[in-house]
């Protein structure tokens, strides 16, 4: 990607940020609304794991779409730079 493009996009990204600051001027401080509706303590009990077959199916799909796999089924990614 050209640096020029990145710069232009960064700049245009900020326009709305500036208009937000203007829009928010004079509005009272409120608590923040993080969620579309509010609740807490939605948890699930621990229990039996998912059936092996279900995961075996997924494993096949997963390994099929990954860019690289080794003979054990590990995902192939980059070697860490600091090890060299």
């Amino acid at each position, binding site marked *: 990607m050209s640096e020029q493009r990145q710069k232009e996009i960064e700049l245009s990204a900020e326009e709305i940020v500036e208009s937000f600051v203007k829009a928010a001027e004079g509005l009272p401080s409120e608590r923040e609304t993080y*969620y579309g509706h509010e609740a807490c303590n*939605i948890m699930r009990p621990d229990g039996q794991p*998912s059936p092996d077959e279900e995961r075996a199916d997924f494993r096949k799909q997963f390994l099929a779409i990954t860019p690289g796999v*080794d003979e054990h089924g590990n995902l192939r990614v980059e070697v860490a730079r600091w090890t060299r």
Partner: protein
Amino acid sequence: MKMLIGFEVHQQLSTGRKMYCDCPTNYQEVPPNTNICPICTGMPGSKPLPPNERAVDAAIEIALMLGCEIIADRIIYIQRKHYDYPDLPSGYQRTSLPIGLNGELQGVRIREVHLEEDPGQYDPTLGTVDFNRSGVPLVEIVTEPDMHSPEEARKFLRQLVRLLEYSGKVRPEAGGAMRTDTNISLEGGGRVEVKNINSVKGAYRAIKFEIMRQRAKLERGEAVTRETRAYLESQKITMPMRLKELEEDYRYIPDPDIFPLVIDQARIRRIKASMVEAPHLREQRLVKQYGIGPSVANVIASERELANLFEVVAREVDPKFVATWFRTKLKKILNYMKLRAEDVKFVPEQLIDLLKMIKSDEITPEQGELVLRELVKRPGDPHELLLQLGLVRVGRTELQAAVAEAIRTNPEVVKDYLAGKQEALHFLVGKVMQLTNMRADPREIIKLLRAELGREG
């Protein structure tokens, strides 16, 4: 030279399912990328399941055991901590705000306890990733820099390991299950953080190495700069990590896909009602309640089940006597057989009976030890074990006959004894024990031998 050492300890919690999906947690036992699903591999569009409640409760319990104030009736967000690393399938790790604050363990202040999820496993030299571990629940314990020597730090970690094992809420320690980041600073130098430590021993070595390295620098008049280093287990040294690591801004936001937790008093009460006493507190109580010495209390409290057994038995038999037997005999036998107290199959009553038999001189301590060994191997009624082992004490006549036999067949030894050699007497006692199949009391044999040989020793 003054030094400050602190820890961030990560420990996997013991659950059947992962934190935000239903994959199993036994990641070490299966081929790479077997315990995976769209959620723990960051497939497009996957959303976390609601948090695993058992993990949440476990973190609260551990915080309580560490003497923390629980953050009650306040919103605890599960946050996204963003950073880019191959083991992190979604580019962020989920980490809760503190669940407990301001605890203490053996003079070391606990700053906070919170929940996290484990990333996958990345092999940086091979460049491979296995997501089996991704999403296993973790508790993170952060201490203040309150330790002042490698030995103190090691002692603390051992205490912490014992406490976590005691809780019964963590995965048994095995390859990578306990990971710790350590920060070390010497007076006049910057704070150095060491990552990638996987055991208590590793922490001790890493700290020793760091102190040496930092001290040498300071003595040369060089500055020790604030940095993050990695511990290399194979070479037992630390290496600098990328500078970028320090400047990283994690851009925390509450995870919009997970509602926050609010720990109410009822939950705290429920957890408190069933939680185990922390080992360091139990140790202190054992000393006070049973009038036993601190070192023996330390041995008994080393394992939760051992201490439980002790307290049951000590209700029926003199606690000091029981304590001595636990330390000198039972623990020795268990260690020899590589067993943990939780593995023993006999019931407390059988041990109580046995100790009563010894205490009342019904059997000798030597016989007691043989029966105890048998009890650990093949649980049963101690009286019957005594019979099965052929250990019922020999009668007076039989014993006298054995004494006579020993004297008769060992004239040279008798001569030595009469000449004043005490070892000779011990040899004869051994002979008599052999002849009676260990079914006699050595103290009684000595008495008889002396009477027979007419020489008071």
